[in-house]
């Protein structure tokens, strides 16, 4: 089932220099998707469009078949309930003056979701492997990996269908990174993940499908396994060859 379809989307901050050219792809429910590219590839711009922070200059983004309309408050509320985000740096994405409870409750409050918020927060904390007593503490009391778990708890507390993860493990140490990737894998049994990353290894470990971006264009897309085994585009080949590997 298609959650989001991006159809011939172009975008530019100025008319002269487009940063995205004719980008089309779909996000399918239950299929984790990795958007891979280097600086200037347009991966962050795609994310901004999907977050509704920018509008495409042409083309259309659909959510469950309906064109995304930033002016339609009812639609956007439904959209934000279904699509949540996790960012790269858990030191800047969590409000240092709020307790974990208030941080995680934010989507529930902002989206006016009825029900027992406290129970939902406790469940979210359990899902990301944090103890219940974390609820009354502040972000500074946690390590980088634990903070990213808090950010993930906030993203899943409203039970979204899709989580947009922007380089969500790139700032973490290797030993923490592998645990958060495992957690994301676990969470993706119930929630689809769109991971934007420059790190092919992480994308390969988490995503069934992959899109390779270069200078605002999709150069290759498909099943991760196939693309890693038989990269077609010269840029994909170069990218793969550039990843340092463990000595045999």
């Amino acid at each position: 089932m298609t959650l989001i379809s991006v159809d011939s989307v172009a975008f530019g901050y100025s008319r002269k220099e487009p940063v995205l050219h004719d980008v089309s792809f779909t996000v399918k429910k239950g299929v984790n998707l990795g958007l891979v590219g280097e600086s200037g590839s347009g991966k962050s711009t795609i994310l901004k469009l999907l977050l509704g922070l920018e509008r495409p200059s042409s083309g259309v983004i659909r959510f469950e078949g309906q064109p995304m309309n930033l002016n339609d408050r009812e639609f956007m509320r439904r959209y934000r309930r279904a699509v949540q985000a996790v960012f790269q740096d858990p030191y800047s994405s969590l409000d240092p003056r709020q307790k974990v409870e208030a941080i995680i409750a934010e989507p529930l409050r902002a989206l006016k979701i009825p029900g027992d918020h406290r129970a939902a927060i406790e469940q979210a904390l359990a899902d990301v492997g944090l103890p219940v007593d974390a609820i009354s503490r502040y972000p500074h009391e946690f390590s980088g990996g634990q903070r990213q778990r808090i950010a993930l708890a906030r993203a899943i507390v409203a039970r979204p269908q899709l989580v947009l993860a922007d380089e969500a493990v790139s700032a973490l140490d290797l030993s923490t990174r592998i645990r958060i990737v495992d957690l994301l894998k676990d969470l993706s049994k119930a929630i689809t993940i769109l991971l934007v990353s420059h790190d092919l290894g992480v994308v390969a470990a988490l995503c069934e499908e992959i899109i390779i971006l270069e200078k605002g264009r999709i150069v290759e897309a498909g099943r991760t396994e196939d693309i890693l085994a038989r990269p077609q585009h010269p840029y994909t080949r170069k990218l793969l060859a550039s990843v340092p590997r463990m000595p045999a």
Partner: protein
Amino acid sequence: MSLLRIENLTIRTGGQALVKDMSLVIEPGARVGLIGESGSGKSLTALAAIGLLPPGLKPEGSILLDGVQVIGASEEKLKALRGRTAAFVFQEPLTALDPLMKIGRQVAEPIARRHRRDGRSAGRQEIVAEVRHYLERVALPDIDRIMNAYPFQISGGQRQRVAIAMALACRPKLLIADEPTTALDVTTQAEILELLSTLVREEGMALLFISHDLPVVAKVAEEVTVLRRGQVVEQGPVRSVFGSPQHEYTKMLVDAAAAFDRALGAQQ
């Protein structure tokens, strides 16, 4: 004589030891990797080696750099060591370079300094020729344009090449590179790693390469030291440390790196 001999280095701030009883030896021409996660003390160790620890951090033990005791040395003595004996390449070239100075002038600085140090004055022409030489050495294209550009006008990879050129221009015996590719794209990283390996070999320099990334270290280093919370957990040739790690912590790191590596499938 070893180029760098660190023995029982402990670095304290207040009552807390950030580096504990750390020892590391680098022979002339050797390529050594220092691996650790955040807070492991890997950067502090490198800064201590050339006497650049921030005030408030007290080193104890012994650091012999080219036979000179760094701990307790006067600023004058340290200045003589920096550049001539050891030069530094940092993680983020955008902050390492002066944003208000054109590249040509920045690279000229260490060259002029080296000439003064050697007790000879070099003419402008001679220095410009050397600037060009070092920018060529790091394989920068379009050297005339780059010499006239400010750091913000060139790419991240080009900036890191400039930083490497400045370190090379000191003609050091030891090049210390602290996460020099972490801020770069993966294709640029591959180029810079290749460049560093080639240069270090051709110039006969020793290399101390600091990184949290195991496969990156494997690309450039022959020996490796693994640090955890300020303590050495394992030391040895890269092949044996990565191939059959002895310490639990090293095993965990190698397993994690290998898991991402496996996910990528067989090497093309």
